[in-house]
């Protein structure tokens, strides 16, 4: 059974289309990542699925309930963590958790056991009495997660949960998410970080409200048109400028000391690039084809999209 299913889900604000005919399915017990740049429509999608906003048209079902007609049933079965952590800074860790437990109507019986579990796996036990406002960014985020999980939801929505959190806390956070999967919780996470997208079971690439690619990280990498050639070069900036000027047809990207050329005709471009650099007297490694990372896919798919939009 699918935990989330949408069909031609659409939301427009005045003239702007925030979410455009979104059709996706998320299977129970998986982590699904909604990946896209800022303003792509991730938060709006979250709000539509968590039933705090009504779609302009189309349908969506979460945990088997319709987001408009059965919104109340959905609210009892989902947890949600918005971008702002949604905690009361002047209440303590325990007061925040208890407040959300009360609002969700978590029965007193068994509640303290649940709270202890949540505090333990989020490492917040020593900070029970601390005011939420005095927690570090990473701890706030874990407290937000604990509050969103207090009523043992079936589906968990996380809107850019690790935005502005340090790398160690981010890794911690993902460790917790994987633990949740063992409890059969479905996780729907939005992110602009591609390393996080790699950790998802499946992901959807969203841009300007539209899904551009959908599948497992490996599948998404396959949709990349053409191949990637990597060149390692010391004076990468100069080489990058030059290649960009000469190879107009291809998409050239700079990643530190590496230059990536995305092309549909790797054989031809391989020799062309080598020749250009040789002629300019730039000392560089020979271009070699590599496996695309999500970042490459992301950049090239978005570039493709922009080009086709301009052509229109």
């Amino acid at each position: 059974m699918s935990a989330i299913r949408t069909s031609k889900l659409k939301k427009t604000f005045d003239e702007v289309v925030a979410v455009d005919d979104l059709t996706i399915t998320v299977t129970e017990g998986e982590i699904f990542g909604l990946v896209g740049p800022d303003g792509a429509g991730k938060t709006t999608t979250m709000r539509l699925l968590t039933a705090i906003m009504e779609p302009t048209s189309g349908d969506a079902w979460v945990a088997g309930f319709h987001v408009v007609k059965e919104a109340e049933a959905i609210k009892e079965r989902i947890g949600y963590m918005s971008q702002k952590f949604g905690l009361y800074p002047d209440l303590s860790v325990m007061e925040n958790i208890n407040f959300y437990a009360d609002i969700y109507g978590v029965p007193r019986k068994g509640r303290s056991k649940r709270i202890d579990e949540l505090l333990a796996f989020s490492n917040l036990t020593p900070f029970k009495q601390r005011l939420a406002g005095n927690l570090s960014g990473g701890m706030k985020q874990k407290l937000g997660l604990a509050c969103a999980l207090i009523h043992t939801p079936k589906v968990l929505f996380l809107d850019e949960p690790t935005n502005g959190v340090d790398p160690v806390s981010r890794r911690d956070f993902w460790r917790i998410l994987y633990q949740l999967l063992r409890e059969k919780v479905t996780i729907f996470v939005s992110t602009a970080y591609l390393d996080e997208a790699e950790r998802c079971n499946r992901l959807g690439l969203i841009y300007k409200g539209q899904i551009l690619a959908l599948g497992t990280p490996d599948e998404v990498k396959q949709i990349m048109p053409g191949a990637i050639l990597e060149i390692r070069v010391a004076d990468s900036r100069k080489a990058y400028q030059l290649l960009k000027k000469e190879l107009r047809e291809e998409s050239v990207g700079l990643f530190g000391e590496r230059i990536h050329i995305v092309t549909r005709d790797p054989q031809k471009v391989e020799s062309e690039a080598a020749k250009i650099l040789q002629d300019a007297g730039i000392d560089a490694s020979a271009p070699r084809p590599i496996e695309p990372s999500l970042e490459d896919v992301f950049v090239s798919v978005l570039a493709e999209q922009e080009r086709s939009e301009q052509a229109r």
Partner: protein
Amino acid sequence: MFERIKHMLIKEFIQIFRDPKMKGVIFLMPVIQVLVFGYAVTTDVKHVATAVYDQDNSPASRELVSRFAGTEYFDVAEYIYHEGRVTELLDHGKVRAIIRIREGYGDDLRAGKTPQLQVIVDGTDSNTAGTVLDYTTDITREYSKQVLSRRYARLQGQPVDPPRVVLDTRPWFNANLESRNFYVPGVIAIIVMLITLMLTSMAVVREKEIGTMEQIMVTPITPAEFILGKTVPFALIGIADVILVTVVGVFWFEVPIRGNLALLFLATGFYLMTTLGVGLLISTVSDTQQQAMMSTFFFYFPAVLLSGFMFPIANMPESVQWLTYLNPLRYFLVVVRGIFLKGIGPLILWPQMAALLVMGLITLWFASKRFKKTSV
């Protein structure tokens, strides 16, 4: 449903009482306001600093001056001996009135002519100036009457008191015409409005700002539960402030309370519905606490000025008077003053009570409707 509202209330109270500044706003501000209005704000005009410019300096002129100085209304601050000092004193605001008696006053009076007395008042504060002029008219009239009867007596050889009508004034409800009896009950109305407007709008907007609003909207809580959870605490605080101000007013300032306390609380309840409703409305049009604060004052000041709290509504232009019918404070002031000073009951106050109830229901209904639309 009641469970959730109860927990919202508990949370709200923890937050309010954890903030020391909040405690000050809730408990200290009302007391300070009552003290200010009880002691400092008074429209009674007494002990007006007065200068005397007696150019005649005769027994008759000195007698006239003593008539003024003998009242509690005029305090002679200085005797003037040259013209220039008149302007100087008024310019510096050292005196508010100058009594000037021209040379020849005593002679004229003895000769049976009608001498003139000049009183110069500082007209900057027109209210006080008007009152001072009323006093001088009264004192001069009384003095003229005596001069007249003395003259009769001399002419006829025996003292004669010409027949006249004696005016016997008696202010009801506030026998000594004390300003504080008028203002202290009014403070209840304005303080409750300010506190509930501000706290409600700020508390809701704060949840928007810190993002808990969105977090709460995903929970099974209904908008009605949220609205009640956000307004009932401030209604309770409003009622606590009514009690606080009443206690200070009655026991400290000895403001009489002649009417029914239960009626006062019932009216407060109706009145709170309007102020909480407006507070909620403000929260739906504000995204930040600053905006909420500005909007609160944008509503509050006109409401106070056009309520009859300080300035009588009857003196306002007619179009503005119509506007005051939309002001809940206007009705509540009539009720509060009626209960405190006149001791009147629902038989007389029902139109005001009904107006408050209707306005309360309408604002609350409208605010909740808007709230549901804008909260996400």
